[in-house]
């Protein structure tokens, strides 16, 4: 049988039609809007002490969940941090129905956290095992002791790569200085 393009189109449409999602904006999008607005200076009814506490909680939760602030993964930590801290700060007031100065999105976030808390405690993320970024690898490479001149701080700060420096590749410079290129797995306590 030869599957025609129209059959594939139909299959894709059927499958797409079987997927449905709620069209009300979900809570975390609303929270993001408010957070971004807060960052732009229109802070809504939060004291500076509360904000400091929230930032501290965000950092803590980022570490617990493994969602750091690098590589664009800070959002989860911040969101959870805001929710965790606000939960501690405002839960009692919200539970009693007392009027608080907390903005609506924060109160909604607490309600959301309360629902989640019973079923899904925060779990550390598994290691991704992925390759680190080029910059990270360069920085780690600089930190490793190796023969030759230590690069200047400027060279390190701009991540100047040894392999592409004008003095030749690492292999060329090694061979020029020490003779044969070492076999894989050879270790030297210091310079050979």
């Amino acid at each position, binding site marked *: *049988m030869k*599957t025609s393009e129209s059959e594939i189109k139909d299959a894709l449409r059927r499958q*797409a039609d079987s*997927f449905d999602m709620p069209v009300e904006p979900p809570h*975390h999008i*609303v929270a993001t809007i408010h957070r*971004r607005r807060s960052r732009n200076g229109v802070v809504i009814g939060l004291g500076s002490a509360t904000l400091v506490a929230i930032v501290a909680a965000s950092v803590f939760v980022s570490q617990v969940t493994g969602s750091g602030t690098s590589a664009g993964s800070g959002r989860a930590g911040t969101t959870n941090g805001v929710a965790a801290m606000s939960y501690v700060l405002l839960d009692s007031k919200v539970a009693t129905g007392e009027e608080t100065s907390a903005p609506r999105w924060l109160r909604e976030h607490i309600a959301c956290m309360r629902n989640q808390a019973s079923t899904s405690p925060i779990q550390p993320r598994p290691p*991704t095992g992925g390759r680190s970024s080029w910059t990270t690898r360069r920085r780690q490479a600089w930190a490793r002791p190796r023969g030759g001149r230590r690069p200047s701080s400027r060279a390190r700060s701009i991540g100047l790569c040894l392999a592409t420096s004008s003095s030749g590749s690492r292999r060329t410079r090694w061979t020029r200085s020490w003779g044969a290129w070492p076999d894989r797995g050879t270790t030297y306590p210091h310079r050979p």
Partner: protein
Amino acid sequence: MDPSPGLGVLEDVKSDVAEVGAIIRDDFEARITALYALHARKAGRLAYLLTGDPHLAEDLAQEAFVRLIGRLSSIRDEGAIASYLRRSIVNLAHKHWRKVGNERRHLNAEHVSVVVRSASLPDVESRDAVWRALESLPYRQRAAIVLRFYEDLSEKETARVLGWRIGTVKSSVSRGLERVRKEMTGDEDERE
């Protein structure tokens, strides 16, 4: 004579500013809500076709909206919003599959047995054979086919969305279709 005529005016100005701020805020939220209602389902469906996982598809669609919110002020043409979302979804799906690949490679290197999670139901007769074949495609071929046949994009537009050359799109679609046909033939042989 009123001893502080200026203070009253200041209060008026303050309340006017607060009122205008509230209107802008409400207007912004209303716009987001309207955009979400208009585009969310389509974005979610595209994400579903690219990942095969309904829960992940919802997450990707929401993440795409979070990205959109950050850029909303710089998007002048309302028609560009759909393109922006489409591209975001494709990039996010690509990021997801790259992460999955990294995790799998890491686990293989550590000699941990990898349990491949089935995104959809393990199926049964009711499942679409063409869709099953499409699900088995590598991400690049699948993305090219979905954009060409579900989104009805031209080869040039598909290339732009994926950031590939037109020739790469053509070959990916062609290889993908060939593989789908082969899978289908295989299924039929098994049935016989």
